[in-house]
């Protein structure tokens, strides 16, 4: 028994990986769907968006890549669906070079569903290089930051950009951010200077970093990781249902469930083995 416990503590990582693989695949094949309570920060985000009036203009910064797509794409889709349903005008930009080819099909898909007209109801300004410098330019002069949009139209000539020159001309800013540059840079560079209303959807690992911003009122809402996206999906598709929609984050919560449980069981058994072998050694 002692030998087994000793070997268990230095278990080959490949067994750990195999167990993890099983924990991920099983719930995909046999979904369970535990009920879940909506987080207060996601509710706050949703409620503020519910106050938007038709014709209000929102800037969405789509800053994610294929790696963070599973966590953020569900939120991004639900967010666009939410705002299109409320006839809000949406201007989307990106600070990550791999975001445009990812988000363009999503934007066009959702715009087509809602009959939105490019240039009037929505516009995609494309990618802007420069990290914090780009964000400062967006705050200072968005037309200068994006002189042409993703379709090579002159940005200033787009009807949706009428009256929009700086970030503060938007009703609010949504930052769908997987890291750097993203929400933190928006808050640090321009939120205070222009007194902007910003909300964020971010990966789970970055969420604790942004909680202080939410607590300080610098963010009016925060959807963290897959659970945050799932909560937001539930709120949006309950009030604005779409037939045949696939709530990706809600479905993925099952995988998170079992994955977390597996790691907890590993840690607990590892510690039990640690204590028992330590006693024997003493």
């Amino acid at each position: 028994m002692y030998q087994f416990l000793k070997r268990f503590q230095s278990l080959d990582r490949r067994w750990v990986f195999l167990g993890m693989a099983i924990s991920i695949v099983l719930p995909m094949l046999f979904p369970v769907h535990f009920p879940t309570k909506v987080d207060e920060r996601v509710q706050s985000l949703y409620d503020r968006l519910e106050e938007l009036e038709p014709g209000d203009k929102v800037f969405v910064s789509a800053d994610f890549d294929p790696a963070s797509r599973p966590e953020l794409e569900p939120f991004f889709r639900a967010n666009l669906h939410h705002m299109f349903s409320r006839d809000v005008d949406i201007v989307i930009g990106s600070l990550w070079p791999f975001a445009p080819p990812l988000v363009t099909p999503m934007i066009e898909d959702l715009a087509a569903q809602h009959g939105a007209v490019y240039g009037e109801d929505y516009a995609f300004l494309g990618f802007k290089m420069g990290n914090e410098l780009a964000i400062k330019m967006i705050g200072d002069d968005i037309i200068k930051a994006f002189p042409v949009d993703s379709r090579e139209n002159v940005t200033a000539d787009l009807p949706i950009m009428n009256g929009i020159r700086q970030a503060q001309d938007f009703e609010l800013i949504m930052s769908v951010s997987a890291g750097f540059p993203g929400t933190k840079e928006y808050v640090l560079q321009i939120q205070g200077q222009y007194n902007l209303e910003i909300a964020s959807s971010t990966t789970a690992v970055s969420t604790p970093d942004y909680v202080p911003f939410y607590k300080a009122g610098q963010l009016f809402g925060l959807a963290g990781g897959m659970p945050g996206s799932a909560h937001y999906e539930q709120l949006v598709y309950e009030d604005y249902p779409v037939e045949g929609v696939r709530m990706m984050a809600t479905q993925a919560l099952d995988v998170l469930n079992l994955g977390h449980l597996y790691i907890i069981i590993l840690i607990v058994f590892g510690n039990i083995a640690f204590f028992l072998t330590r006693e024997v050694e003493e």
Partner: protein
Amino acid sequence: MNKLLKAILLLCATLLPTSGYATTVTDLSVESPKNGDGLTLDISWNISVEGEHADAVLVVRSKDGESWEQTGDIIAISDSAAYEHSDRLDVPGTWSYKVVLLNADSPEDLDLLLAQARTSSVVSGEPVGKWINTNQGHIALMCLILLVGWLMLHYTKRAMSGDEIYIRKMPGIDAIEEGIGRATEMGKPVLYVPGIDDLQDIQTIASMLILGQVSKTVAEYQSDLIVSCCIPIVREVADEVVRAGFFQAGHPDAFDPTSVRFISSEQFAFCAGTNGIIHREKPATNIYFGRFFAESLILAETGYVNRSIQIAGTAEATQLPFFVAACDYTLIGEELFAVSAYLSRDPRLVSSLKASDMIKVACVAAMIIGTILASLDNDILVNLFTISG
């Protein structure tokens, strides 16, 4: 006389209500913001409505008083209220503004609209650019930066005149030289990863400063160094820094130009490439100093499998837990910025650590005093450093 008459008429025009459909525009004014940039004007006006009223208003502007252009969105009116509009100009100078009343029948063409619609009187203003932002928060921050700079120079002067400055022991930094020694004994290289952020990030700058010291030590030990870079311009700077380090150690010929490598500017491609370096070249010591993101754990776990000694340092709080779990030594936050001073023991650099420590003490004191004051409903310290506009 003409000027006087004009002034009286302008005054009357501003005071007299502009009415159309029982909609009155009053108190139209244009001013330069308090800390304006010289290209912004703030326009404000009041609207009072009674019964049937105009549907919306539009603000127009003109440089020469003749050709007018729209500025901002059409503003819908539902009730009496005060309105504001911040106008960003393309050129400085005196600009005139007026408010145009709109209804459902108003033409879309601006010239036609101005000819037909009722408008308010014209007011003019010139934006004033300020050369110093006089907001309380900005002034307080400037004073803080000047204080830090003065403290640094003061302690530098003291250190140069012989005063000894104490630095506490940091095992993580001591382990760097041990790790380089281990690499030399094992005949394996040292891997240095300066993070994945751009050169303008302060953590990358700190990493470059540390790389100078590390490359000098590696050259002294006659070991091999591999620097794996994610950003091309960081690679160029790292190349110069390593070259300089070898030169300083008196071994300029030992520098291998292929040791400083650009892998990929894509995060996970860089991670995969660096993992490949770890698996193939099997470095004895891995040093991760800089800004890292999701790839931190992948790099650290790969290094663990390779049985390298790993020393990490980052101010990126989200990645610290992964480094703590997988590395032998982890430097947290500000310790990363102290490494270069600790390694070199240069009095000028060590004294700067003392200066920042003094500021830290002042921050803690301010937090305690501020907390007590805020509990007594006094926001003086909170407002002192509030940055706005």
